[in-house]
C-alpha cells in the first residue's frame, strides 16, 4: 500500500483531503458501532437457523425453549403479523421458513431472553422435525428443467437475451473459454447488529441498524410488521463496512418483531459464523464466451452464455444478471452480439449485491478473452485493448449510446506509463516472496508475470429505476446543518457532504444531522452512486440556500443577485468591488431548503436485450505484477498499477482509500477468497478458513486518477467505489498465466490450479 501524508489544509472544501470526522474514533476504538449500543431494560434476540440446505418442516415445538427461565418469547412464521415475506426485487424470502427451508442457515425461529447465553441454550431447546430433501445445487439442472421447483416462483429467477447486429458475423480469429467464478463474501468487519426499541403503546418501533438503505428497509420491515411506515423509524447505527451485504434484510424484521412482542428493547448481533449465513454473497457464475475478431485484433462479434447461481431467494439476482450480460463487451467496441443470461434459484446460499455487482464476473471472462485475442493476433495485452477501446458516442450491445466520458484509452496508456517495480532481487527477503512467512521459497524458485485488466462499470441503478436522493441544507446562527438518509458505511459521505457545503456556501461550520428516516430517501449506498446522487442532493440543497443568501445580500446592498458569487468565505460582486464575509452576510438569517436529485431516466430491456438501461459508466485499467512459485502454486502480488476514470477528485485521500481497498478485495477474489460449498452446505464459515488478504498479501498500489469532468454528474465526479475491485482480478490472473504459461479459467486461482 502507499504511504500517504495528510497535507496541511486551510479549508476542508472539495478537492482537498479532508479527513474523516470519525477517523480518530475508529482508529482508537472509541467509535460506537451498532453492536456497541445498549438500552435500558434490554433483552437479547437470537435466531434459529436451518442446518439443512433443503428440507420440509414437519413440526416446530417451542415449548421447551419457552419454559427455560429467562426466555421471554419465541417467534416463528406464525407470529409475523404482516407480509410473511420480503425481498428487494421480488418478495419471495420468508421472514421465517414455514413449510420448507431452502438453504442452510435459513431462519426458522427467533427468541428473546435476558442474556446471550440464555438465548443460545434456548435455541437448542426448540424442537424442529425436518424431512430432509435432496437439494438442487447445480444451476444447469434448473435450466434443463430436470429438477422440480424448490419454490412456488419456480427455479428460474430470470432469463434475458441480448441479440444485436449481424448474427452470422464471424472472423478470422475465434477464441473461446468457459470461465468460473467462486462465491465471494463481502466480509465486512462490523457484523450485523440492530437495536429495536418498541413504543410504549406497542404500535410502533424505533430500529437502530447497520444498513445500506434505510428507506428500503423501512418499506420491507413495516410491511412485515403490518405497521404504517410512519410508525417505524430507522436510525443508522455505526456501520463497519457493507460492500453489498447490507442491502437485503437480515435481522431487521426479527429484531422488531421480538421487541414488539416482548415490549422491551431487543438487541441482536451476529457472530462471524452466523454472519456468513445471515447475508447474501457474490454470485458464483459460469460464463462461456466466444469472440470473433479481425486478424488485427478488432472485435467483430461476441457470443456468450452466463449462468448466475442466485441461491434460494431472489434478492437482487435479476439486476445482477442484467449488469453481467450488458457488460459482456467490457470497455470495448462491439457491434454484434448474442448473449444468453440466466439467474437461477438453487438450494445454495442466497446471492445478491456485492461491490461490482455482476460486472466482476463478466469482466473476468471478457478480460481473459482479450488476452486470447491478443495471442491470436500477435498483439500485446496493451495494444489489443487500445485497438478496441470504447469511446464516448459508441453504441453498446444494448443499443444504448455511451454518453458518459469514456477515457478508456487514456486509462490504459496512463497505467502503462507507471514504472514497473524493480526486478526481484536474488537476495530478496523470503517474507516478501510467495509463501510469505511460511518461508517456502527463495528467489530462484520464483517467476514473475505481468497481466492486464480493463473494465467498464455502470453507475447508479438501471432498468427504469428512479433511485433518487434527498438532502436538506439549513443555516442557523452561522452554522450549516445537513440532513440526509445516506448510509455511511465507511465510504466517507460524512466527510464529503460537509466539503460540498463549504465549497458552495463559503461557510466552514457544518454539522451532519443524525442519519435516519426523518427525511426522504437517499437511495442505497451501493452502485457507486452516493457521491453522484446524495452528493448531487446536498449540492442542490446548498445551492438553493445560497440562492436565498444572494437574494438577501443583493436586496440589502442594491446589487443584482445574479452578479454575486462565493469566493472562499466571502460573497463578492463579480463586476464590482462589493465584498462581504458570508458569515457576516447571513447574520440573523435562518434558511432551510430540501432538494431531490434524480438521474436521467433509464429504460427496461426488451426481449432482445435492447434499451437504454444504464445511467452512466466509469472505466479503469489495472496492470498486475505477480511473483509466482510455479512448483508450489503460491503467489505474491507485487504491484498493482492503475489509472481510474474518476471524473473529478473531490477528496484525494478518500479516493485513494477506495482504490486501495477495492484492489485488496479484487485480489482476494483472484487468489484466496471463496465460500466453499458442498451439497449446499457451507464448509468454511469463519475467518480461519475464509481467507482475506493480509498485509503480506497486499501489493504496492500506484494509482493515477484520470480527471475528465463528467458533465452529467452534479459535481463532475463519477462514482469510484466499485471499479477498483473489478478488473484487478483478471489482471492478477493474467499475470499468473503469464508467469507459468498455463490457462487458468477459474477464480479464485488455487495453488493446485497453478502447480498440478
Amino acid at each position: 500500500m502507499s504511504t500517504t501524508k495528510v497535507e496541511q489544509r486551510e479549508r476542508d472544501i472539495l478537492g482537498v483531503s479532508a479527513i474523516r470526522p470519525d477517523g480518530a474514533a475508529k482508529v482508537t476504538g472509541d467509535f460506537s458501532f451498532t453492536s456497541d449500543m445498549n438500552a435500558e431494560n434490554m433483552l437479547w434476540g437470537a435466531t434459529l437457523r436451518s442446518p439443512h440446505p433443503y428440507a420440509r418442516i414437519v413440526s416446530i415445538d417451542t415449548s421447551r425453549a419457552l419454559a427455560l427461565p429467562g426466555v421471554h418469547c419465541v417467534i416463528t412464521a406464525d407470529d409475523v403479523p404482516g407480509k410473511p415475506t420480503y425481498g428487494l426485487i421480488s418478495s419471495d424470502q420468508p421472514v421465517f421458513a414455514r413449510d420448507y427451508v431452502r438453504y442452510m442457515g435459513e431462519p426458522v425461529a427467533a427468541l428473546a431472553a435476558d442474556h446471550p447465553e440464555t438465548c443460545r441454550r434456548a435455541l437448542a431447546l426448540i424442537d424442529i422435525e425436518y424431512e430432509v430433501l435432496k437439494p438442487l445445487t447445480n444451476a444447469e439442472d434448473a435450466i434443463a428443467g430436470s429438477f422440480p421447483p424448490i419454490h412456488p416462483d419456480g427455479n428460474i429467477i430470470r432469463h434475458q437475451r441480448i441479440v444485436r447486429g449481424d448474427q452470422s458475423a464471424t472472423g478470422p480469429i475465434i477464441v473461446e473459454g468457459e470461465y468460473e467464478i467462486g462465491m465471494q463474501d463481502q466480509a465486512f468487519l462490523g457484523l450485523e447488529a440492530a437495536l429495536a426499541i418498541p413504543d410504549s403503546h406497542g404500535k410502533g418501533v424505533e430500529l437502530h441498524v447497520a444498513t445500506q438503505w434505510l428507506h428500503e428497509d423501512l418499506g420491507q420491515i413495516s410491511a412485515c410488521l403490518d405497521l404504517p411506515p410512519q410508525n417505524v423509524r430507522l436510525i443508522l447505527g455505526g456501520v463497519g463496512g457493507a460492500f453489498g451485504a447490507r442491502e437485503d434484510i437480515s435481522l431487521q424484521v426479527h429484531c422488531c418483531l421480538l421487541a414488539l412482542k416482548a415490549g422491551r428493547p431487543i438487541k441482536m448481533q451476529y457472530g462471524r459464523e452466523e454472519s456468513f449465513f445471515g447475508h447474501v454473497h457474490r454470485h458464483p457464475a459460469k460464463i462461456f464466451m466466444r469472440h470473433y475478431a479481425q486478424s488485427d485484433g478488432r472485435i467483430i462479434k461476441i457470443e456468450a452464455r452466463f449462468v448466475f447461481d442466485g441461491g434460494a431467494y431472489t434478492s437482487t439476482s435479476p439486476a445482477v444478471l442484467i449488469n453481467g450480460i450488458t457488460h459482456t463487451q467490457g470497455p470495448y467496441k462491439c457491434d454484434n452480439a448474442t448473449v444468453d443470461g440466466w439467474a437461477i434459484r438453487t438450494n445454495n446460499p442466497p446471492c445478491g449485491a456485492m461491490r461490482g455487482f455482476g460486472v466482476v464476473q463478466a469482466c473476468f471472462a471478457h478480460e481473459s478473452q482479450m488476452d486470447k485475442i491478443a495471442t491470436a493476433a500477435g498483439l500485446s495485452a496493451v495494444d489489443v485493448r487500445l485497438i478496441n477501446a470504447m469511446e464516448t458516442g459508441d453504441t453498446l450491445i444494448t443499443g444504448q449510446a455511451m454518453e458518459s466520458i469514456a477515457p478508456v484509452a487514456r486509462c490504459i496508456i496512463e497505467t502503462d506509463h507507471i514504472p514497473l517495480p524493480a526486478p526481484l532481487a536474488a537476495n530478496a527477503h523470503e517474507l516478501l516472496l510467495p509463501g510469505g512467512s511460511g518461508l517456502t521459497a527463495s528467489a530462484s524458485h520464483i517467476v514473475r508475470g505481468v497481466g492486464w485488466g480493463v473494465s467498464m462499470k455502470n453507475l447508479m441503478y438501471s432498468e427504469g429505476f428512479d433511485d433518487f436522493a434527498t438532502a436538506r441544507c439549513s443555516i442557523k446562527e452561522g452554522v450549516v446543518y445537513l440532513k440526509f438518509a445516506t448510509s455511511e458505511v465507511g465510504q466517507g459521505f460524512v466527510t464529503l457532504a460537509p466539503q460540498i457545503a463549504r465549497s458552495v456556501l463559503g461557510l466552514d461550520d457544518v454539522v451532519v444531522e443524525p442519519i435516519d428516516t426523518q427525511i426522504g430517501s437517499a437511495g442505497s449506498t451501493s452502485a457507486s452512486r452516493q457521491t453522484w446522487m446524495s452528493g448531487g442532493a446536498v449540492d442542490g440543497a446548498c445551492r438553493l440556500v445560497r440562492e436565498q443568501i444572494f437574494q438577501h445580500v443583493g436586496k440589502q446592498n442594491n446589487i443584482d443577485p445574479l452578479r454575486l458569487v462565493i469566493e472562499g468565505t466571502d460573497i463578492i460582486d463579480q463586476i464590482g468591488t462589493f465584498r462581504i464575509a458570508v458569515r457576516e452576510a447571513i447574520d440573523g438569517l435562518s434558511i432551510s431548503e430540501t432538494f431531490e436529485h434524480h438521474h436521467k431516466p433509464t429504460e427496461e430491456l426488451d426481449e432482445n436485450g435492447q434499451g437504454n438501461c444504464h445511467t452512466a459508466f466509469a472505466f479503469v485499467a489495472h496492470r498486475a505484477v505477480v511473483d509466482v512459485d510455479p512448483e508450489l502454486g503460491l503467489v505474491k502480488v507485487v504491484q498493482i498499477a492503475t489509472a481510474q476514470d474518476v471524473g473529478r477528485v473531490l477528496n484525494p485521500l478518500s479516493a485513494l482509500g477506495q482504490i486501495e481497498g477495492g484492489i485488496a478485495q479484487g485480489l482476494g477474489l483472484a487468489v484466496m477468497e471463496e465460500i466453499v460449498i458442498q451439497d449446499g452446505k457451507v464448509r468454511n464459515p469463519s475467518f480461519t478458513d475464509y481467507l482475506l488478504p493480509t498485509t503480506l498479501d497486499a501489493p504496492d498500489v500506484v494509482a493515477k486518477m484520470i480527471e475528465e469532468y463528467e458533465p452529467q454528474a452534479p459535481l463532475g465526479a463519477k462514482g469510484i467505489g466499485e471499479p477498483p475491485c473489478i478488473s484487478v482480478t483478471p489482471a492478477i490472473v493474467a499475470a499468473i498465466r503469464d508467469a507459468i504459461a498455463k490457462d487458468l479459467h477459474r477464480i479464485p486461482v488455487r495453488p493446485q490450479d497453478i502447480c498440478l
Partner: protein
Amino acid sequence: MIVAKNLEAALFALREHDDARVIQGGTDLMVEINFNHLKPTTMVSLRHIPELRTITRPDSNTISIGSGVPYSQLEIEPVASVLPALAQASRTVGSPQIRAAGSLGGNLGTCSPAGDTLPVMFALDANIHLQSADSQRTVSIHQFMTGVKRNVKRQDEIITAVDFPIIDGWQGYSKVGVRNAMVISVASACLVADHESGDVRLALGSVGPTIIRCRETEQWLKDNTSLTRNSVISPDIAREFGARASRECSPIDDHRSTAQYRRHAISILAARLLQKAYA
C-alpha cells in the same frame, strides 16, 4: 478461574478439581469455549507462573523452553540462533496478537496435526516434561502425540517445559498456506541436518493424523549419500528425497486443500529444505 501464582498452586488445583482445564494464552481454549465445544467449570490460569516462562540450558547440549513462553519470544534471540526452525515456525503462527499470547504448552495441549511447532519437536526429538501434584515424567514427543488432537497427558498434569537438543548443523521450517501470513498450514515440513552425525531428520505437519517423521526417507538418504557439512545436494537427490517423503505422508481432502496437492507440496518442501540445508 483459579489464577495460580506458582506451579505448586496450579498442580494442587488440578488435583482438587478433576474437571479443571489449564489455560495459558487461551488462543485455542477460548475459541473452543466461545464455540461452545467445551464447557469447563474450573479453569486454572498458568499465565502468572514465572517458572513456566523461563528459557534455560540444563546442560550444554540442551535448551529447555518453558511451556508458557509466548511465540513472540521464540521468534527472537536468544532462541532464534539456537533453534532457528522453532523461531521460523513461531513466526508463522497467527498474527502478532496470537503470537503474544500463544505458547508451546498450548500447541502441545491442543496437539493438532497443523500445530506449527510440533514438526520442529518431531524433527529434533524433543522431550516433554509433564508434572502432576505427585509425579513427574519426561516423554519423548514421539510418544506424546497419539492422534488428531490427542496426547498422553493426563488431566492432572501440566506440561512444564520442552527440551530441545542443541545441534551442530542446520534446521529449517517451511509451511504452505493459501495466503502469505496468518494461515493454518496446508502442509508443513521441518528438516534438521545434524552435521556431527551426518543424519538428516524430516518431520511433516498437516498431512496425517499425527506429525509424520519420515524415517524411511531419512534412511534412504543415509544409505545413498554420505553427508558432511560441505556436501552439496544434487537436484536428483533432492527430488527423490522429496518424492519419498511425500509417499510417507497420508493427507486428506478437506475444504482447505486436496490430498493430491498436500502430497505434492511435501515433495517440493522436503526437496527445497534439503538443498537449503547444504547450500
